[in-house]
């Protein structure tokens, strides 16, 4: 009898442990997917995201790892809390989680603001949608969520493996502004890698350019054999790809293409939140096109979902780079704010975004001497950008405290003008001359120009010089640099030295 009870209890124990194991297994997978969709509500996911390092925009595989880690961290926390909370409350939530299918797409938005040496401001928006789906196999994809349907249909109809299109207005001044995140030529540029399954690439290319010209309201239909080339060495696929047969690559550029509001509006429509919420509310055409440089681009490529690369995701990146030149002539003060640049402030993050962040580049001014950013944030992150380690102040829009009590975020960047001393004594006609003294801090590797406007005065006949056609002589100006010099102060030198060494 005891043996029966023993065996029955052992069986019961084994069954219970199996049940628990299955419960734990399912809890690992379902809350992760759920946390992706309701990222704002779940406190564990928020702490997980703030602990992580800043994203590195150029490398894809590491990002996948980070996402994996994040998901693992979150689920571990969740499992612990699930275990500690009362079992009757955990059971209903577990059932709800398991009934919702895991969404396979993810949207992230970020804005990087970098003050440039010349006084301009470089703002770079990046909107990334990752979608684990397969456009290439026969079954038509019909349920679109965050990925725009127009681009998805383009990918599947024209068997596109990678698509890169950019519209740029203006010329990037590398000498004054440094390197951009993604260089783009003026006008429109389009290059596409087609799948191996395409038979007539030129025909497909022609149809693709016409469809794209309709989507982006640009005159891409002018792309034909006169401006299309097939590069053999300059381009490699930026996403995953097996074969790099250059027969499937096409590159075309339209340098005369002008970018205007008609191109910005369909570009904005491709975003999941449109221009209604999140960082895209800042994209107002009247301010964006009043800039020195403006470039908007769309990049589509297949990426690996995880480090083993078992499944493939499609990545859609929409980038917008703009350089604002907001010099106020005549006044030394230069103050920047989101409102001044974009005539809007931010009130909320895009609810469909899993992360919405603003990065302000403070590498050139870590101690806050040259400029100060307000509202201040203690969140800092470091990232490698183009081989250079840079420090950023981080603003996370998914957190309510970023917006403060006013419910809106308006970043101010105030340049601390070095208080140069100016002593100016204007002249009085026939009494005294002008005197202008300026204490200036000259930045290195730069050219400083001082210009003075003057007006001519009519002379009386007694004041004419004997040779008036010669004109007047203007005296030279004096530049003195404040450098301590020991040599000049040393007058008690008894050693044999030439006189010029003591000048």
């Amino acid at each position: 009898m005891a043996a029966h009870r023993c065996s029955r209890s052992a069986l019961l124990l084994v069954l219970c442990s199996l049940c628990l194991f299955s419960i734990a297994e399912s809890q690992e997978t379902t809350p992760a997917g759920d946390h992706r969709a309701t990222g704002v509500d779940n406190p564990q996911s928020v702490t997980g995201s703030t602990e992580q390092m800043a994203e590195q925009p150029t490398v894809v595989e590491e990002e996948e790892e980070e996402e994996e880690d994040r998901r693992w961290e979150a689920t571990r926390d969740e499992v612990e809390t699930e275990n500690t909370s009362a079992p009757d409350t955990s059971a209903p939530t577990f059932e709800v989680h398991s009934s919702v299918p895991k969404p396979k797409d993810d949207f992230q938005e970020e804005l990087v603001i970098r003050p440039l040496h010349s006084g301009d401001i470089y703002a770079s928006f990046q909107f990334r949608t990752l979608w684990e789906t397969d456009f290439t196999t026969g079954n038509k994809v019909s349920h679109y969520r965050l990925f725009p349907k127009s681009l998805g249909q383009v990918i599947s109809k024209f068997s596109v493996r990678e698509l890169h299109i950019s519209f740029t207005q203006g010329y990037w001044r590398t000498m004054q502004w440094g390197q951009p995140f993604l260089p783009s030529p003026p006008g429109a540029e389009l290059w596409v890698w087609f799948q191996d399954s395409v038979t007539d690439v030129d025909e497909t290319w022609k149809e693709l350019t016409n469809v794209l010209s309709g989507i982006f309201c640009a005159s891409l239909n002018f792309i034909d054999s006169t401006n299309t080339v097939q590069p053999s060495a300059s381009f490699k696929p930026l996403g995953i790809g097996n074969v790099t047969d250059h027969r499937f690559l096409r590159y075309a550029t339209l340098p005369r293409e002008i970018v205007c509001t008609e191109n910005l509006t369909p570009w904005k429509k491709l975003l999941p939140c449109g221009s209604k919420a999140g960082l895209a509310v800042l994209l107002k055409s009247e301010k964006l096109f009043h800039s020195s440089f403006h470039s908007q681009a769309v990049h589509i490529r297949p990426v690996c979902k995880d480090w083993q690369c078992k499944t493939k995701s499609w990545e859609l990146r929409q980038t917008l780079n703009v350089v604002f030149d907001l010099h106020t002539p005549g006044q030394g003060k230069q103050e920047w704010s989101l409102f001044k640049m974009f005539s809007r402030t931010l009130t909320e993050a895009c609810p469909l975004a899993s992360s919405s962040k603003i990065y302000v580049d403070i590498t050139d001014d870590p101690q806050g001497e040259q400029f100060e950013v307000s509202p201040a944030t203690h969140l800092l992150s470091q990232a490698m950008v183009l081989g250079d380690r840079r420090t950023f102040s981080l603003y996370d829009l998914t957190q309510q405290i970023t917006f403060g009590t006013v419910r809106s975020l308006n970043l101010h960047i105030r340049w601390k003008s070095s208080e140069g001393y100016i002593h100016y004594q204007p002249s009085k006609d026939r009494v005294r001359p002008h005197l202008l003294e300026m204490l200036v801090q000259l930045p290195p590797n730069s050219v400083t120009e001082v210009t003075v406007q003057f007006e001519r005065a009519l002379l009386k006949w007694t004041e004419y010089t004997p040779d008036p056609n010669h004109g007047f002589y203007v005296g030279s100006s004096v530049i003195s640099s404040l450098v301590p010099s020991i040599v000049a102060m040393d007058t008690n030198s008894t050693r044999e030295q030439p006189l010029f060494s003591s000048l």
Partner: protein
Amino acid sequence: MAAPMTLLLIVAVTIRAVLYRSGVADLVSERVEVVSPLTAWKRVVEGLALLDLGVSPYSGDVFHETPLIIYLFHFLVDYAEITFMLADVITAVALYMAVKDYNKQVFRKQKYALEADRYPLDCLELIRSPGEMYYIPLKVAMCYLLNPFTVLSCVAKSTCGLNNAVIALFILSTVKGNMLLSAIFLSLATYQSIYPLTLSAAALLYLIFWWFVAQYAFMYLGSLLVLVGLSFFLLGFWDYLPSVYGFILSVPDLTPNIGLFWDFFAEMFEHFRLFFLCVFQINVFFYTLPLSIKLKEHPVFLIFMQLAVISIFKSYPTVGDISLYLAFLPVWSHLHRFLRNIFLVSCVLLACSALFPVLWHLWIYAGSANSNFYYAITLLFNVAQILLVSDYFYAFLRREHHLSYGLYLKRKDGSEATLVLK
């Protein structure tokens, strides 16, 4: 007549706004005919910059505006264009209302004179009818706003526009009979540049009783004192007195302009400088007494004459000053039949206006002319203006004479007589 007036204002503001946005604004603000050392916008900006730097704006020789102007533009420097357009609009509206009121007064006086049978029978064609007087206010506003001189002066952001606005408001308040406002605006105008002091004679002619004259003088001096005291408190020192009034009266800066002072004083012996300075300045004030005695029944014509005399003989005139008295010409459109030199005068004025930039270029940039060429055109321009003013004066007096003695004059023996101004 609000609708045509509104349309006119819209057209004028549009023209000025369009010119502000084009490259004309920078070109015109450098021209010596349009801006003078007293009114240039560049000097206002310089004065504001000096004030920001902590240096007194009057320590150099550049800034000659009054302290109230500094403080006005301290707040309005970003809206300067709107300020000047608004000043032009205020001037036009004030002139419109003043001329309308003046026409009513003229018509009323004429009616009483007709009823009292004071006019001889044959001069009935000289009587003015309401029909011809109906459009005169609109024509006056049009003459001011659409005059190229005014447009240039506004686009160059010359503070002459603000002076004109104050004088126009003075004229309006005088014609309406509001003595307090008239005294205040006159003191503002005198505070800006000394010469409008001569217009006080015209204002006083509106008053009949001795007690009112004393009241007016008191109000005028009181408001002038307030302005001067305010300037002192705003800046904390009396520096502005020699820089503004001393500059206007002693003419140290000989920058070429369309006036008569500059070349004369450039070629003068130092010994006689003070003498000729006094002569030239008294010349401006001198005509007040004889004109006010002759025109004591017609104060508005006296104002017109005084404005013309000021614009011609002041130390630093600009085209903005000219446009103010030219705006009055439609009011005397009934005198056209008595004008003798109008064709000559208008041809000379047009030709000189065209020749000013040409000879300036030849003198300064090409180097093939000298200051005499430019001064010759200046002299011709001023002679034409004097001829214009004296022609209108002659026509006005002749009409008055005909209204008293009949249109077709006969000598004692019955033969036809002609009228000569002696």
